[in-house]
């Protein structure tokens, strides 16, 4: 292994570019056609083919019971319902064609080389997960930031001789010509975005997933966040898929399920521009195969690295310690569903996993550079190149002291590399000062106006906001390190507080921002403790007897950094609160528009235009009891 591809970060972290050995023409072909004996997740008496799994799901007692109930409710004939179930299963179920996988692998590797991608994998972590496999189902739960997430773990598994994961994909792919089928043959299975109003479909999906978990000897992969996070930071998890997947454990059909949090970070998100627009309310175009091909062929250039980190495998059984008794166990095993207590355990697991995804994030030079750039944007001072390097070093220190894993060996070289990767967005001007490149003017046509989800923003607003939002997108994944300390700092800046007061205000703000900065409630006590100690020892705050007040000059720069970290979110929250207080009762969509309109008209951080943030803040206000939600 050359120095170039090996960066040692700690005892258990060693990131290796798994594409490196494939460079060169015949390397790809030989690798993709090798004899392959993967490690399976569980040892079953019988290896079930994709068809076996479909059959088992269709013939299950549960489906039979659903059909009985549905037929008695609607009067539909059981035979027609049975047909419907079979159709749903066809729509959902995965298939596996090794030759398709191999050929796609070859094409994908070619594209990857065109894009100059590196896939850095924390090898010891992957090997650790692999070594624990064999006894029970394994769920891979990666973060979801890009379409690239869909195939990346499949490739990783091929590389490490792990059975290829069954990947849950949205039906927007399914409806794409050729691609839908292709992904299916590469072990993707499809789930509709909404199950409302389709009880038979919902039941079929539930049974299929449950059967898949119990009977498939490969990892099951799905995105807890449910959708690609446009903001590049964690979204609150959705609980449906995890509920379905853990059902066999709760029914004690299995002794355990292993859950593996996976973090995938990018030097550059392929979708960064569309995301920025989407955050403003400009909708994404519908996925089509044509669009995809066009897009792939535009993928020349430098896309930088992706970083895949596996968290410690979690034994759900051990994590939950005790699964409460439920009278569900009096039902036939296949008919058992989650009791409310069990469902809250699922929520607990999901929240914990998202926390672990964050904890296993990798701070890349893109993130660090974005932090530096944002600071220079806010202080309106473009930094000379050398100063940028110094600042990046400073950010590394700050983040490391807050517990982040920073991927860095040679700052100068990596900054140079990232500047190449991000050359459409960030650049050194003729004076070698770091600047953002303003985006091209977009034409706000009537058609676009109609499609815009929020307030109809002016073209000028968008032009100015887009590049900054793109910077923020790379700041965002770092925020979970900064936010707890930042809130303490911001609260104390309003005046001295006793520690108890401080803790109280902190808790309230955290709750209000729970959706914007997702975190697990359970560990909050400790998070606050740690953040407080951090603030004290870095002079962010000072303690004098009972009173906590603003720290000395030593902490000034850190205070500024921290304040900026939470500023856009706090502003969004305030704007939401203002709008709702004024109007008393308002439709959510209307509120979002008004918030955006206000954000546009005032001297606010451009990120406050984000509909995502506004939505999260409204949810936070509901959670804190300041707002109530009424169904119409």
């Amino acid at each position, binding site marked *: 292994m050359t120095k170039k591809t090996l960066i040692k970060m700690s005892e258990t972290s060693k990131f290796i570019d798994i594409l490196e050995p494939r460079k060169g023409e015949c390397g790809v072909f030989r690798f993709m056609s090798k004899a392959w004996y993967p490690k399976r997740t569980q040892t079953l008496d019988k290896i079930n083919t994709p068809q076996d799994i479909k059959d088992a799901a269709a013939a299950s*007692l*549960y489906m*039979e*019971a*659903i059909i*009985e*109930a549905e037929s*008695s*409710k609607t009067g539909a004939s059981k035979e027609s319902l049975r047909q419907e179930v079979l159709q749903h299963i066809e729509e959902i179920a995965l298939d596996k064609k090794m030759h398709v996988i191999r050929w796609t692998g070859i094409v994908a590797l070619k594209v990857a080389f065109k894009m100059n991608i590196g896939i850095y994998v924390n090898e010891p972590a992957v090997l650790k997960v692999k070594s624990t496999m064999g006894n029970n189902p394994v769920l891979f739960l990666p973060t979801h930031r890009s379409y690239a997430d869909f195939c990346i773990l499949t490739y990783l598994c091929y590389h490490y001789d792990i059975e290829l994961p069954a990947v849950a994909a949205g039906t927007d792919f399914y409806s794409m010509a050729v691609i839908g089928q292709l992904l299916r043959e590469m072990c993707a299975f499809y789930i509709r975005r909404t199950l409302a109003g389709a*009880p038979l479909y*919902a*039941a079929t999906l*539930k049974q299929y997933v449950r059967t898949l978990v119990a009977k498939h000897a490969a990892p099951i992969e799905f995105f807890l966040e449910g959708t690609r996070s446009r903001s590049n930071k964690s979204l609150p998890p959705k*609980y449906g898929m995890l*509920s379905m997947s853990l059902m066999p454990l709760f029914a004690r059909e299995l002794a355990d399920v292993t859950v593996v949090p996976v973090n995938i970070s990018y030097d550059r998100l392929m979708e960064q521009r569309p995301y920025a627009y989407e955050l403003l309310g400009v909708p994404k175009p519908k996925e089509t195969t044509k669009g995809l091909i066009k897009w792939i062929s535009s993928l020349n250039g430098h896309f930088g690295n992706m970083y895949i980190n596996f968290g410690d495998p979690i034994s759900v059984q051990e994590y939950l310690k005790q699964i409460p*008794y439920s*009278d*569900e*166990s*009096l*039902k*036939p095993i296949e*008919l058992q*569903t*989650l*009791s*409310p207590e069990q*469902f*809250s355990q699922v*929520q607990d697991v999901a929240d914990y996993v998202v926390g672990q995804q964050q904890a296993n994030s990798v701070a890349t030079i893109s993130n660090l550079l974005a932090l530096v750039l944002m600071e220079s944007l806010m202080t309106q001072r473009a930094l000379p190149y050398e100063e940028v390097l110094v600042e990046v070093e400073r950010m590394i220190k700050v983040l490391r002291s807050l517990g982040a894993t920073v991927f860095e060996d040679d700052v100068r070289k990596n900054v140079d590399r990232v500047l190449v990767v991000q050359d459409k967005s960030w650049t050194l001007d003729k004076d070698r000062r770091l600047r953002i490149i303003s985006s091209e003017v977009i034409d706000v046509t009537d058609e676009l106006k109609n499609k815009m989800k929020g307030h109809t923003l002016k073209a000028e607003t968008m032009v100015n906001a887009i590049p900054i939002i793109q910077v923020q997108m790379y700041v965002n994944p770092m925020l979970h390190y900064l936010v707890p300390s930042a809130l303490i700092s911001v609260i104390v800046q309003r005046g001295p507080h006793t520690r108890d007061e401080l803790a*109280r*205000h902190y*808790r*309230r*703000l955290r*709750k*209000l921002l729970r959706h914007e900065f997702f975190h697990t409630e359970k560990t909050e006590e400790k998070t606050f403790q740690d953040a407080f100690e951090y603030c004290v020892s870095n002079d962010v705050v000072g303690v004098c007897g009972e009173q906590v007040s603003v720290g000395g000059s030593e902490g000034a720069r850190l205070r500024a950094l921290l304040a900026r970290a939470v500023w856009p979110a706090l502003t969004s*929250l*305030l704007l*939401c*609160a*203002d709008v*709702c*207080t004024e109007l*008393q*009762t*308002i*439709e*959510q969509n209307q*509120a979002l528009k008004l918030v955006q309109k206000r954000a546009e008209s005032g001297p606010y951080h451009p990120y406050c235009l984000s509909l995502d943030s506004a939505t999260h803040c*409204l949810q936070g206000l*509901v*959670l*804190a*009891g*300041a*707002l*109530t*939600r*009424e169904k119409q």
Partner: protein
Amino acid sequence: MSAGTESSPKNMSGDAKSSEQAANNVKKTISDKNNENTRADTVIKVKKTIPRKKQDLLKWYGWGYKDSMFTLNGDAAYFTGQRYAIGEKPLPHLKQWAYDNFRLVGDTQPKVPEPPTSFPESRLPGNVRQELEKIAPVSVEGMDRLIRAHGQTLKDISCLRGNSFPRIPDAVVWPDSHGQVEQIVQCASRHRFVIIPFGGGTSVSGAITCPVKEKRPIVVLDTSEMNSILWLDKEQLLARVQAGIVGQDLEREMRARGFTVGHEPDSYEFSTLGGWVATRASGMKKNTYGNIEDLVVQTKMVTPRGVIEKSCRVPRISCGPEWEHVIMGSEGCFGVVTEVTIKIRPLPPVTRYGSLVFPDWESGFYFEWEVARQRLQPSSIRLMDNEQFRFGQALKTESSWGGVLLEGLKRLYITRIKGFDPTKLCVVTLLMEGTAEQVDEREKKLNSIAAQFGGVPAGAGNGERGYTLTFVIAYLRDVGMDYDVVAESFETSVPWDRTLSLCRNVKRRVREECEKRNIAHHLISCRLTQTYDAGCCIYFYFAHNTAQCTDPVATYEEIEEAARNEIIASGGSISHHHGVGKLRKKWYTDTVSEPGRLLLLAAKKALDPDNIFGVGNMVFGEDGGEDTLVKSKL
């Protein structure tokens, strides 16, 4: 979306506690939603045959459907309506039979009562009623209360027809789920009112009749809305069913899916699963499917002290005394059975009837015993005495077997069973289920055993008639009462060795009691309806003309009491399947022994210390304690 008024979002300083609550609420609604969506999706909603306003379909003053009854005041007797096989056909022999036995002349207008218009005030306080209404539908209407004030004992029906109940319930509530029952029971504990669980109201022990001296308000908890099949496991042949489902609905749903529960008490058109459990019911086809105690895998009961249910669904358990057997037979005194897991069976491909004629009761009896000894009982096997045989003939429609009674008998006598005395012969009816081979083989074996005891096959038609008449016989009492004849049945279980003498002694005792009271026209008859390894069930019918009686019901009750004393002296039991209720309290302690009685009191104290379920059956009096103790102090 609306801004909260107390906590201003602007300074972000809402009351910490209320926001905590709000968070919990959010979590709760999430999980409730989960609950609804995922936990109820296998429920099979069952169409109810009997509406909530029972009186729209059922006779308010007697048994069964409104449109089904015997009429005598025409040229020939009829059974009205098309619900049963004998419906709308002349019954040319019935009037003669009624005259011969009771001197009943059906020429006068029947004394059908008018529905009452005034009812006792409901004692349920308005605020409690409102609280109940928040949980489930409630009615305080007189008619709704009246028709749930009673079961089907002679006394019940007599009080009903005369609108002379000393006490009727103060309200009726219709929960549709276990959860609602829990809430109602909690409400009762808070407000100290009495709950009587009410299934089909077919009780024949006084178990469902309101305790006369109860001072607290009485709320009848009608289980009929709890009639869903919660799940069905066709592999393990199990179903989880809400306890209020009526027998015929349950059976219809199962049959539509190729299964059967096979529990068919003669009341199964109207009685409920919960009622069967609470009374330890027995079905006609118990030989194949078992009695209720064999059918039930698990029950769930709401008591004032909480929900009692085993935490595992297992075929058998060794874990101390089986509490399932405390729930079974609890006669509404401990709580409400809300859900039951029962066994189901695939429908048999072949059902075949059969009949055998024996020269007399004794030879029929020994045949039954031998069949039981060899454990060759088909689904049902019943032996009818000569009176019942003749009554069966009297219920023939012209189209069926032709000819007048005696002619029919003669033909049988001449052509097939020479040597049988028509005033002595007895009939065994058979109901056989299984594959064609199994049924053939069984029939052959039964015929050959019958031959050993002098019996000869008398055809499938006679057997089938016997079973179809089962459900019609219950309608006879109403027509009897229309013309001053009272009728009732009582039953017992008895070991084989004492059966013959018991039947003889009881019949004789009843006749003597009638003679003492100058009751010239009466009928006492019996049949052997179930057999076991160690004995059988004997079912008596008794009817008499009440012309001589000043208080016909009291007279009847005296005679039945004398008969029960005779039964017990002759080695029979207090009841094979009707239960203790209020009618048979007197014999309870002697039956179970003193420690047994204490055990029952202890169970009551453990499950229902405040006597919420104060229906007062078995040893329980109106104060929740024992009647006998109160009496002995007086």
